[in-house]
């Protein structure tokens, strides 16, 4: 099952495969009323509803969708059929597209999009929802990994806040990849907006529904993630709806410490503590982000070595060499998480819940034979625990250029108090002459940090240089 959670909607092929349907569009006296936008709830009943347009998503088999007159729900005259391609089908890697209108509809009197669906085999639809109009895509809401069975069943997507949908154009969208490598077909029918009295207990959530806190500085910005809303449906399930940030109203408990904008971007502006919360339609969201701001950030000393004398792993002062990752998340023993942040244009590595972490640059490995030193700026927030130590290990992969084998060389240096201090940048300049076990540095590939009683640190300006 390929989950297509990151469809690039701006790359959707409209020109290639745009179908315009104007079926069953009759003038109705109510159309002549002051209401500017149609309240038509129907998306696809026995054909395209008035004004509905289809466009296949980029990368899909653009012929995957068709109107089917043979297999329909409840023996009606037509359904929508999607033929998901097999893996490696040259026509496209998945099936999917958006159904939208050129003129918005007023959907504010409904509380759900419903449809009937069945599949040729039990399958999983990656994403199905509404709010994709190939324009601003302001109010998408969707179900992820929806399981279909081989019999017709009705599915419900509750609207996170219908009052926002006064001029909505995105009526329906869907995206599905092969099932275990195999293509299949599924049918969708009776797609419409409804007002269902049995949808209960709307519960938005931010930050995955968790209350967490983050250490921050003036100038740091971060985005609230983990956005969803949950509704209890009649069948007893709590339906989780992936919910666009635009449905949420964010608030800060102390705007002198941190502000939050309509897109959930939190900007730290002063010292102190602020709690970021949110709501949808007056319902308080579960979860919060507490910003503990230490005030002004003391940036690491700006490097002054000439760029020609430096090979850089991580620094905004130079151009970094190709690095595979700054946190390898090495299972199963690594606990270290990353919470890298950006202060006034300077990115800082931040390792939290630290035990060890590896930075790898093996493609290609780096020859630092001409360099004489390694440089690292290190900052330990909070207080320095007794017994704290910090280790730097450099690993050379040897001539074979890969981890393991018989030619890997490495050396580990350990730092303790008084070299280690808290709340101040520690600039370490390590001559390779202090690393006798690193008998070659022509194929350098890893820097591994490990430590005891150092749970959190910042790192910046990691580079090799010669004087």
């Amino acid at each position, binding site marked *: 099952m390929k989950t297509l959670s990151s469809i690039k909607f701006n790359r959707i092929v409209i020109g290639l495969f745009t179908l315009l349907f104007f079926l069953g569009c009759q003038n109705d006296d109510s159309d002549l009323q002051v209401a500017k936008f149609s309240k038509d709830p129907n998306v696809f009943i026995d054909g395209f509803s008035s004004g509905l347009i289809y466009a296949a998503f980029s990368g899909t088999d653009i012929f995957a969708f068709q109107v089917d007159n043979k297999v329909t729900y409840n023996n009606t005259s037509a359904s929508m059929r999607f033929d998901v391609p097999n893996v490696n089908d040259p026509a496209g890697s998945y099936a999917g597209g958006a159904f939208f209108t050129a003129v918005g509809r007023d959907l504010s009197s409904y509380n759900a999009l419903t449809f009937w669906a069945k599949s040729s085999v039990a399958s999983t639809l990656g994403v199905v929802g509404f709010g994709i109009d190939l324009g601003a895509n302001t109010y998408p809401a969707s179900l992820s990994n929806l399981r279909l069975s081989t019999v017709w069943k009705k599915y419900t997507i509750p609207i996170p806040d219908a009052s926002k949908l006064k001029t909505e154009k995105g009526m329906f969208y869907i995206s599905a990849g092969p099932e275990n490598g195999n293509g299949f077909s599924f049918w969708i029918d009776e797609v419409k907006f409804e007002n269902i009295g049995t949808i*209960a207990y709307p519960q938005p959530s931010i930050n995955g529904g968790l209350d967490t806190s983050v250490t921050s500085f003036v100038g740091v910005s971060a985005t609230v993630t983990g956005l969803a809303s949950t509704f209890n449906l009649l069948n*007893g399930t709590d339906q989780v709806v992936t919910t666009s940030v635009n449905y949420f109203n964010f608030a800060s408990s102390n705007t002198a410490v941190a502000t939050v904008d309509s897109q959930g971007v939190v900007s730290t502006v002063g010292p102190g503590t602020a709690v970021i919360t949110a709501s949808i339609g007056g319902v308080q969201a579960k979860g919060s982000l507490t910003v503990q701001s230490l005030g002004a950030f003391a940036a690491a000393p700006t490097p002054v070595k000439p760029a020609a004398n430096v090979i850089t792993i991580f620094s905004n002062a130079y151009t970094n060499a190709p690095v595979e990752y700054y946190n390898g998340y090495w299972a199963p023993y690594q606990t270290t998480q990353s919470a890298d942040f950006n202060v006034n244009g300077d990115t800082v590595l931040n390792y939290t819940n630290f035990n060890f972490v590896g930075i790898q640059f093996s493609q290609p490995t780096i020859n630092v034979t001409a360099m004489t030193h390694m440089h690292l700026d290190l900052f330990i927030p909070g207080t320095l625990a007794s017994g704290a130590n910090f280790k730097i290990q450099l690993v050379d992969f040897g001539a074979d250029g890969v981890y393991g084998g018989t030619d890997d060389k490495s050396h580990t240096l350990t730092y303790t108090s008084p070299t280690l201090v808290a709340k101040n940048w520690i600039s370490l300049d390590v001559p390779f002459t202090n690393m006798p076990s690193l008998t070659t540095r022509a194929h350098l590939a890893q820097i591994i940090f490990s430590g005891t009683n150092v749970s959190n640190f910042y790192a910046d300006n990691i580079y090799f240089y010669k004087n």
Partner: protein
Amino acid sequence: MSNLILKSAAKYIAISTLLVTMSCSTDATQKLDKRNWQLAWSDEFNGTLGESPDATKWVYDIGTGDNGWGNKELQYYTNRPQNISMDGAGNLVITAIKENFQTASYTSARIKTKGILEQKYGRFEARLKTPYGLGLWPAFWMLGDNAEFPTWPTCGEIDIMELRGQQPNIIQSSIHGPGYYGADPITGKNTLIDSRYDTDFHVFAVEWDESKIDFFVDDYLFKRIERSEVEARGNWVFDHPFYMILNVAVGGNFLGNPNSLTPFPQKMTIDYVRAYKKG
């Protein structure tokens, strides 16, 4: 409150058809005989926040009963205010909590008028809002207090309202007696088509005399059980005093157990309980 499995598909279809028919005619007025009920007993639950139920009106069932109160229920019933107390807004709240307590993994509460209000025939009603979620089993029901036939089901049981939390728009009303009990009572259901019993208050009532038992939701008669229908199945055991019971059970063989997604705590909110006699 005993397990109900409809024995034949035909019966199920018949009930479903009846429900659909009724639901489509909610605007129609029922022509029922005029009743003249006299209030015999009531509890309006107008206590202060956190107050326990009136000890002159209710007694508790405590613990896990025998085999989970006969139904493999999972909860331990307590008399603690966190499980049963007034909300200070005119309601009694029974709260089912997911917590390890004694030998159980859930707590809740069950109260009854046994020895206090026991009455033969009449109207018994409660206005309440149910909990919801897989494995939640709220009930408003009655048991017969019969010295001659003290054991169930010869004592008789009248289930005015019980609900499976995973079907929060369907209530079931049943009677149990010899020949029609456990999984096979005489029963009826009332289904809300576009609303739920857990999101709004509804009035659940039984009207019972020597010849019939009528079940109501919001004063709509949805199920009548005639004495002759009962006697075709077994003995009519409804000519002696019954007492009322309110409880929220968790899990058991009537509806299955909660899973990790079942939201807790869950509350049954009861506005009032009233008993009437014929005037």
